[in-house]
């Protein structure tokens, strides 16, 4: 367990730096996480982050394809917004757990 202080609250992160409790997430925290990944968040980023958080709260397993089918961004744009592994990067910034794979 790693405790890390970002801004004011004490946040509990998992081994890979994902927020353990999505309820602790704030837009400021997202900007902080994003800065670590060299991303400056725009409104478009926040649209995707809010969508991810809503889907996670519904218990929907997330995939890159699902984000691409969300109507918010296509897959190409998703990669542009969150370079590298977009689902992993965006999940971390959205304060939800690392996307689990089924297999």
């Amino acid at each position, binding site marked *: 367990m790693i405790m890390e202080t970002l801004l004011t609250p004490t946040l509990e992160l998992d081994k890979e730096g994902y927020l353990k409790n999505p309820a602790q997430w704030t837009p400021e925290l997202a900007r902080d996480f994003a800065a670590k990944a060299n991303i400056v968040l725009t409104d478009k980023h926040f649209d995707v982050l809010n969508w991810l958080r809503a889907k996670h709260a519904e218990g929907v*397993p997330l995939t890159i*394809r*699902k984000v691409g*089918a969300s109507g918010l961004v296509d897959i190409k744009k998703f*990669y542009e917004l969150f*370079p590298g592994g977009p689902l992993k990067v965006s999940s971390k910034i959205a304060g939800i757990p690392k996307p689990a794979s*089924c297999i």
Partner: protein
Amino acid sequence: MKNLVILGAGAAGTMMANKLHHALNPVEWKITIVDRDNVHYYQPGFLFIPFGLYQPEDVVRPRTDFLPKGVTFIEQEVDRIDGNHDQVILSNGQTLHYEVLVVATGAEVVPEETEGMKAELWYKDIFDFYTFEGSTQLAKKLQNWQGGNLVINLAETLIKCPVAPLEFTFLADAFFEDKGIRDKVNITYVTPLSGAFTKPKATAMLSTLLDEKKIKVVPDFYLARVDNERKVLVSYDEQEVPFDLLVTVPVNKGSKMVERSGLGDEDGLNFMPTDKYTLQAKKFDNVFVIGDATNIPASKAGSVAHFEGEILLENVLSYIQGEAMEARFDGHSNCFIETGHGKAALIDFNYETEPLPGKFPWPLLGPMDLLKPTRLNHVGKLAFKWVYWHMLLTGKTLPVPTHMSMSGKITEEEIV
């Protein structure tokens, strides 16, 4: 007379037809199973065909050979499910009313989903091995191929039999070694996953094997298109991998019938939202889903369909009796992984527990070793073909527990 209708006479549908026929009173229930044709493929056998280890005729039987006499088989395409009126509409306009519906329409590869996949080079330098046609065409290609860049690619993370591409890779390595041209072949494994596999301990074991066999892994590569002219794979973030021979696992989707019925998951892949414990469809109480057709977070594999079958039978019977459904599927999956040269590894896992090392099914005695390539596991893999035709399809109980057991597995605490 009440009606129980099963859509799909593949592994899952056929085994359910047998189990339900055995369990339901034939005076009270009529069981009908529908499929578009009467050809049953032993899909695990497709892996061996490209290397000449199985012949095409080893993997084909009529579906009706495995259906019990009292079950009605209708050879017709299903147009759609009309769940609000408890009926299925077939392509010829015939309607089937049901009290209970079991959807077992499986998954299929859809190369058309990826730009440039099914184009000039299809079945010339680009092959799949998840279909009868693909695996037999690839067998011809490999007979005369003289070497170059062999690329194995997964177009999507959600595919049936997720270990099969790795098995193909290991078998290819052994095949070219035996042919004496391994030094002329570069093998590259290109995957949208972050590593060879998803679960940490299995990935570690498989990565070691890939290293030993000098197979290069390109992770986090999400295929956007295939450039036929330049013969390169291009990812969404513009990474490129050149190939001379591409063996692809195209995007896998559920049946188009699911899409026509408006019952697919929101990712557009046509898998049906299903309760991962009871296997009841999310949308209709009297509809159940089994095998590759579901959207549950378990592997799409024959062993999973088998374990689900035991649960589904109990829950369908409870539902019919008006009782609470108490059987719970735990995500149990059990797969042999061919590693080449007559050896295979074995993994056994579920929703909660990743594949662990140890012995299977009994502690110490085994006789199978988990997460370790052995000759005995390979014998087990080959024996599975007999088990499949003679026991699995006909709904017999296999000597493997339905729920995953920790017995024989070595946990992290014990290793440390």
